[in-house]
C-alpha cells in the first residue's frame, strides 16, 4: 500500500540524504542496527565521533516503508554536530513532528531513535577509556 506522504518524508526519500557508509577504520567509529519485525523494518546507523563532544559524521541504511527511510535519514542528520549525550536525548516525538509522520507510522520514528541509541551505546562501549584507547572497525 502506498499513500500520500508529507513533503518532508517525500523529499528525504527522493534525495536520500545521509544514506551510506562510514569508513569503519576511522577513529571514533561506531555502528548498530535496530529491527521492527512486526513492520518488517530495519535501520542500521553508523557514526563517527572523535570525542564525546561532537559526532562528526552519521550514515544510515534502511529497509522499510518511506517513513522508515525518512526517519533514519532525519536521525542521522540530527546526530551530526551534536554531542553524544545530546544525541542520546533525541526523542521519537521530535522525529514525528519534524517529518509530519502519519500516526500509523510512528513505529518508524521509534525504530530510528532506537537505532541511534544503539549506535551511541556501541560508541560508549568502544570508547569508555577514550577514543585513542578504543577499537574502531565493524
Amino acid at each position, binding site marked *: 500500500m502506498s499513500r500520500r506522504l508529507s513533503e518532508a518524508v517525500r523529499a528525504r526519500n527522493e534525495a536520500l540524504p545521509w544514506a551510506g557508509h562510514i569508513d569503519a577504520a576511522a577513529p571514533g567509529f561506531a555502528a548498530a542496527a535496530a529491527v521492527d519485525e*512486526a513492520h518488517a523494518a530495519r535501520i542500521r546507523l553508523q557514526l563517527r565521533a572523535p570525542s564525546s563532544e561532537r559526532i562528526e559524521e552519521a550514515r544510515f541504511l534502511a529497509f522499510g516503508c518511506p517513513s522508515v527511510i525518512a526517519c533514519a535519514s532525519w536521525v542521522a542528520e540530527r546526530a551530526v554536530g551534536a554531542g553524544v549525550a545530546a544525541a542520546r536525548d533525541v526523542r521519537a516525538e521530535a522525529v514525528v513532528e519534524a517529518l509530519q509522520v502519519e500516526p500509523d507510522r510512528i513505529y518508524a520514528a521509534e525504530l530510528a531513535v532506537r537505532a541511534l541509541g544503539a549506535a551511541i551505546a556501541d560508541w560508549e562501549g568502544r570508547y569508555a577509556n577514550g577514543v585513542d584507547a578504543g577499537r574502531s572497525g565493524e
Partner: protein
Amino acid sequence: MSSSLVAPRLPIYLDHQATTPIDPRVRAAMLPYLEDRFGNAASTSHRFGWIAEEAVEKAREQVAGLIGASTSEIVFTSGATEANNLAIVGAARAYGVPAHEQALVEAARAGAVDASRLPERLREWVSEAGVFRDHLVTVSTEHKAVLDPIAALTAEGYASTVLGVPESGLLDVEAFDRALDPQRTILASVMAANNEIGVLQPIEALGARARAKGVLFHTDASQALGKIDLDVRTMPIDLLSISGHKLYGPKGVGALYVRRKAPRVSLVPLVHGGGHERGLRSGTLDVPAIVGLGEACAIAGVERVAEGARLRALRERLLAGVRARLSHVEVNGDLERRLPGNLNLSFRYVEGEALIHALKDVAVSSGSACTSALREPSHVLRALGVGDDRAHASIRFGLGRGTTEEEIDFVVEALADRVTKLRAISPEWDALQRGPVRWEAP
C-alpha cells in the same frame, strides 16, 4: 530489446487489475442515458421508460453474448462484490441448512418440536432422512468478496473448507475433488483469474468435478472476463460474477450469471423491494452504468484475442527488460497460466511501498499493507508460501488497453534505477555484498 525513442506521457498507469479507465466508446454509449434518455427502466407507461428498458435489454444481450448465456440468465448488480454475495449467500440460503436450523429439524424429527411451527423451508427436511447440505468450498487466494461472505456464513452455522494452493497459485483439481462432499456441499467458489498474481485456475476441470458431485460451481470472473474465453454453454459453470470497472466499463455496476437449465439454479435474494431482475435483485436499475457494462462486453468480445496477444508481448518485454537489468527478481505465481496483462514480481532486498513511492511516475500496487500494529503481506502471497520478505518486496504490474511499448521501456529503466538506489541503502543488500549485519535484539 530496442530502446524507445519516444517519451511516454506521464504518469503511466499499470494498475489495471485495480480498475480500468472507461473506454471512450463506452463513455459515448452511456452519455445519452445521463442526459435526455433518463427514464426509469421500470416505468412501463411512457416512452422514457420504454427507451430505458430497451437499453437495459440490449445491454443484457451484450453481457450474455460475451459468455454464451441467455438474457434471462443475467442479473444486474452493483458490482462483482454484490454478485459474489448473491451467488454464495443466495445459494447457501436456498439449498443449505445451517447448524442451528439442523438442530430444530432434528428436534422436529424426534417429535420434540411441532414441525408445523418451523419455517416453511425447513419443513421439507423433517420428512427427509437425508444429510443436510451445509458445506461450502473455496480457495485461500480468493478475493475478500468471496472469502468474507463464506466466513460470514460459517459464523451463521454453515461449514466451509478453504483449500490451500502451492507456490504456483494453481489449485490442485484432485484436492478440490476430495473437498467436495456430494451430500453436504452446496457450492464451490473458485475465481477464474486471481486479482493479484493473475493466475488462471482450471475452472473447466474444477466445474466438471463439482457437476459430477451435484455441487454448484461459482466463479468470480471479475478479472478474467474479456481477457480469456469464458463460455457457459460449454463450461460447467453455474454462477459467474462480472465487474464493469475491470472491463473498461463504469464502476458501480456488475452482473451475476445464474444458470437456468441443467441445472436450474435457485437463489434467495439479498435485496428486497420491488422484485426487479426476476426478483433476485430489487432496486431501480442504473441504466447508464448498465449500458456502459453492455458496451464494454461487446467491445471485449471483438477485441479479446488480439488484445490478449498484444498484452502478453508487452508483459514479456517487461519481464525480459527487468531480468536483463536486475538480479534477485522473482515471479510470483505461475507465469504461463496467467492473465496476459498481469505480472507480479518480488524485487528482493527492496521494500514494496518504498519502491512504489520511488516510482513516482508509475502507478502500480504492492503486495503488503501497513497498519499501526504491523505490516501485513497480502493474503494471496502468504497463501503461496513465498515468505514474508518476498511478499513485502512484491509489486503488481497490471497492463491494459492503453499500455504501450514506450511505457514498458520507461518502466524498465525506472525500475532498474530505483531498485538499484534502494538496494544501495538496504541493510540486507549490504549484508549480501559485505557480510552479515549484527542486529540489535528486538
